């Protein structure tokens, strides 16, 4: 493969700004934009439905979070856990579907593994609430 992309698409013809759907052969094939990305018109429109569903689900979960926060689960800790579980579910949906993390390239996962590790370390610091080596 040529190492630089062509400066302009080779077809040359101006693309109508009114949004006409272009024939596929007019474009060089896409590479490496992530598996969730697809140049086929049909495939993307299939995704559109999924995005709308996920959006609706997220709104539903928002309502659920609000509702559950007024239910007494016995202790603040229990309510906190319930709230965070729902929030994590929502965050997972956003990351997996909207951010295409359900099907990404290997390299991005490799980067994020480090992030997960260091964020876990950050949260581990709250352990000093229970064990304070200075004030103990």
């Amino acid at each position, binding site marked *: 493969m040529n190492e630089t992309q062509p400066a302009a698409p080779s077809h040359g013809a101006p693309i109508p700004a009114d*949004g006409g759907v272009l024939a596929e052969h007019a474009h060089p094939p896409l590479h490496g934009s992530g598996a969730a990305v697809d140049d086929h018109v049909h495939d993307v429109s299939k995704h559109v439905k999924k995005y709308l569903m996920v959006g609706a689900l997220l709104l539903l979960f928002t309502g659920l979070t609000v509702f559950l926060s007024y239910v007494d689960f016995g202790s603040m800790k229990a309510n906190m856990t319930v709230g965070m579980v729902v929030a994590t579910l929502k965050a997972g949906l956003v990351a997996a579907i909207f951010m295409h993390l359900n099907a990404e390239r290997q390299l991005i996962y490799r980067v994020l593994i480090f992030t997960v590790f*260091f964020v876990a370390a950050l949260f581990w610091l709250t352990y000093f609430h229970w064990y304070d080596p200075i004030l103990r």
Partner: protein
Amino acid sequence: MDIPYTTSARPDTGLWNAKIGIWLFLASEIMLFGGLFSAYIFLRLDAPPGYWPHGLLNVPVGTMNTAILIASSVTVVLAWAALKMRQFARYKFYMGITIVCGIIFLFVKLYFEWPDKFHHFGAYIREDRLEKYEPYLGNHHLREKGLEMRREITGHLHNEEALHDQNVHEYEIQLDQVNAAPTDPASDRPHFWPLPKTDKIAHVAKEDVERATMFVPSHSTFFATYFTITGLHGLHVLGGVLIFIYFWLPVGANLYKRNPEHLANRVEVAGLFWHFVDLVWIFVFPLFYLL
């Protein structure tokens, strides 16, 4: 010279450059907000009883803003999908909605939520004077029920000069419902719809007060973390909106005519940033407004 690999994959990474770039940036962003959330947890766990205010934020407004951000996340991904399908008019439409959503979010935050806090007053009562203000605090009732104690009397400060004037010796507070009827079981827990202020006035002597301020960052660790995190988050929303406006302007149309895939990828990258901003809010909302 053109930037290489804007639409084609770099052979060694298998990705177009901006994609890996945005993920490296988001990784650092996760560390930034991760540190703040970690601090939040730590401060909250270590807050002595009665010092972590609860139910002070406007839940319906917060819920609405959450819904607006989620809707904008959907529209930005639809804008990207429209570009992928080479439907430029649709792209402009969805991008326009995204921009409007972002602006509404910021407007609600800056013109309603924050100023509302700046006009709300709270006075923490000294440990040894809590008994004197029992009619406003209802701690006997709370202890019986096994609920967390109250130390603060909140409401609208009638004599604002009391904040600076040494010669004024008391705060005249038009009470919030929770302090007007502290033993009412309805005051035990926060409500979804914020209750209006009552007509009841309390006079709180300055010498009985440990700390008294408007609901500004110095009020408590709660408001310090609230304003820091929502402020930083708001700046991210602003940044996202500015980038979207840039792509919405003729710059976007020109790029689309030259290389539509390049614009699609740019919108995808900006969209990834926007989803991250949404994701942060998904945690901010329950932690500050609800729990």
